[in-house]
């Protein structure tokens, strides 16, 4: 069974999250194959984890002033600043069963590891010496380059994650609520020491297409499958259009 690669380019926060949920829903109904999707965020946006408090994590005034959207994910984990042009996001949808048939894992933590190792395989194609770091990070020499989060529904896993291309930590500190002392030059330096980026590890000349292709090949080799580039189906687009309203609703965003 061939798996599918979707490059859906840039989308806004609500569309991006809606399409991930649409793929998950249609995979549960067996209407689409196992899917690796890559995408970016325009405008820049903050995504917060399912369990996070909106008001405690996000400076809504700063977001508004800077034109940064805010969305709540259906996955747990932390708040992420998705800078337009500063990162690449992937999502991967497969049932636990079909994943396990390719790469054995025991539990939820194991499934994070397996999917993150596929990502690692892709990053290594670019010459990035990445490795999985439990619970949900991918690091290079101990510095975080990717954060990942998954949800599971009826035996199907959706894992999505962000891969840093470059950082804009001053803006990140403006839109995310961090204590005053964290905004100091020293604190900015501290974050810069804890994270790294593709551009820093490889070169800022690397094209987005090369990174996407490396991920596709990395996942295909790691799982031993063919992954073919496709376009989203009509049903996916329609379902995502419905879900988009939900993700853009204040009721969902400010839920907790």
């Amino acid at each position, binding site marked *: 069974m061939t798996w599918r690669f979707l490059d859906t380019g840039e989308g806004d926060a609500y569309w991006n999250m809606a399409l991930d949920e649409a793929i998950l829903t249609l995979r549960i109904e067996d209407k689409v194959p196992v899917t690796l999707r890559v995408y970016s965020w325009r405008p820049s946006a903050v995504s917060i*984890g*399912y*369990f*996070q*408090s909106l008001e*405690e994590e996000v400076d809504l005034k700063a977001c508004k002033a800077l034109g940064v959207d805010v969305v709540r994910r*259906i*996955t*747990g*984990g*932390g*708040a992420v600043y998705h800078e337009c042009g500063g990162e690449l996001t992937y999502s991967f949808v497969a049932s636990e069963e079909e994943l396990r048939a390719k790469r054995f894992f025991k539990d*939820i*933590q194991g499934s*994070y590891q397996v999917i993150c190792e596929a990502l690692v395989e892709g990053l290594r194609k670019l010459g990035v010496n990445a490795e999985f770091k*439990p*619970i*949900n990070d991918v690091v290079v020499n101990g510095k975080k380059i990717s954060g990942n*989060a*998954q*949800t*599971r*529904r009826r035996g199907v896993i959706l894992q999505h994650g962000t891969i840093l291309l470059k950082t804009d930590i001053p803006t990140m500190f403006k839109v995310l609520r961090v204590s005053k002392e964290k905004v100091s030059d020293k604190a900015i330096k501290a974050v810069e020491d804890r994270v790294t980026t593709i551009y820093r590890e490889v070169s800022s000349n690397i094209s987005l297409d090369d990174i996407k292709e490396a991920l596709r090949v990395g996942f295909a080799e790691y799982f031993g499958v063919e992954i073919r580039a496709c376009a989203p189906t009509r049903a996916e687009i329609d379902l995502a259009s419905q879900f988009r309203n939900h993700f853009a609703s204040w009721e969902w965003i400010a839920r*907790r």
Partner: protein
Amino acid sequence: MLLRSEYKVKGGKLIKVALEVEGDLIKSVKIYGDFFLYPEDAIEQIEQSIKGARLGSDLRRIVAEAVERSGAQLLGFSVEDIAAAMLLASQSGLG
């Protein structure tokens, strides 16, 4: 009275608790954070289970039973961490 705490879990996740209390009666609780819990909506069952409990009661046991009932799986934190975060919040009102 609203009691709050931030509890750093070993391994890096952060649990934030907001307890609304009247005397020693817990009127409501919210558990926030960057952890993972499957299925996600089990968090509401866990929060509900604590409603009506007394501050001095065995909150760990109440949470453990709610987790058991909901079939929830925790990643990045434990029942003990939730209880510890609630205890920390309840103590924040003492000083």
